[in-house]
């Protein structure tokens, strides 16, 4: 074994050990019956919202990437410009999925309407 791979393994072992420290601090499990209906529905809503949002954003990003690949294939000289526009467009599309993600986080962690 080279010195580098030994070092890499050591770093991984340390990372794994520190992760088990995090895992021990898991919160106590609350029985499902203790949650009011509102909380259960907000969990279901969060999952579905993220699924729909991520799927539609992926469709849009797929169209953008396809068009960019086609453009580069037709005109490889414009690859730099196309890449810049593609990056900007992808991020603007992705931010919509991120908004949905933030909403689902709010639904999951900050239970709405004070319940």
């Amino acid at each position: 074994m080279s010195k580098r791979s030994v070092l890499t393994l050591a770093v991984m072992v340390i990372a794994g050990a520190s992760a088990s420290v995090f895992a021990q601090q898991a919160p106590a499990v609350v029985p499902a019956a203790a949650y009011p209906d509102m909380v259960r529905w907000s969990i279901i809503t969060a999952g579905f919202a993220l699924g729909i949002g991520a799927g539609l954003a992926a469709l849009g990003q797929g169209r953008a990437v396809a068009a960019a690949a086609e453009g580069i294939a037709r005109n490889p000289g414009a690859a730099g410009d196309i890449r810049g526009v593609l990056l900007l467009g992808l991020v603007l599309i992705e931010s919509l999925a991120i908004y949905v993600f933030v909403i689902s986080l709010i639904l999951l962690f900050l239970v709405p309407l004070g319940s």
Partner: protein
Amino acid sequence: MEKLEHPLWIVQLVNALLGALVRRAGEAMGYHFTGHDVIPAYMVMVLLIVVFITALCVFVRSRLSVENPGTLQIILEDGLGAVRGLLDEWIGPKGHQYLPLVATLGLFILLGNYMGLIPGLMSPTSSINVTLGCAITIWVYYHYQGIRAQGIVGYVKHFWAPPGAPWLIGFVYFPIEIISHAARVMSLSLRLFGNIFGEELVILVLFSLVPFLVPLPMMLLGLVTGLLQAFIFMLLSIIYLQGAVAVEHHEGEHGHDAPSGRQAPAAA
């Protein structure tokens, strides 16, 4: 979300050193602290970045050289040159006057994103307070620069109607413009926050499932998203600046000649 945060030794150290001082100062100003830690974790991380960047700059500055530049100097010069090129490309030949704030924010966000990958630290940008602070800074800055470049009357007029459009369209255009400018703060801050927090959450969940090797691909992805998000924050700030400081041409034939080579996208 508080349950997800584990105590970090550096946060506890800073709180033990400075906590009492901050608590006294805050209570003197009429603010009452409720939590255990007086100085929140993201604040400690932000201070760490500030200290690190200052130390780096002092170190590099002490050994700047024209004939024999070191590796670090070349890397930093290339990074700054790239940001400067971006500014000149989007805003025009005078774009590099906005370099200090834009490049500083980019460096700050890049370091903030990468901090979460180091064990024992967390990303300050995974807290909405930090990203909102960055976004509001950029928002105030580009409005200020727009007013400085066009004068207060010209700046407000460019909210009212696009160049060449009839005057009456302002009644429709003005509210839309106000909403879109207000939404920029939200979109800038939430994009960064969502990306970094989501990435940290995924790594944390994977760690709790399989605490060995499996989270590594996700951390690699974190390297890419961290760089990309810092770049995008910078790029969007530049685009907003360009929209604010662009001086309109009143002649008919050159009506669409922006000073820059590119046109800003309509959506933001």
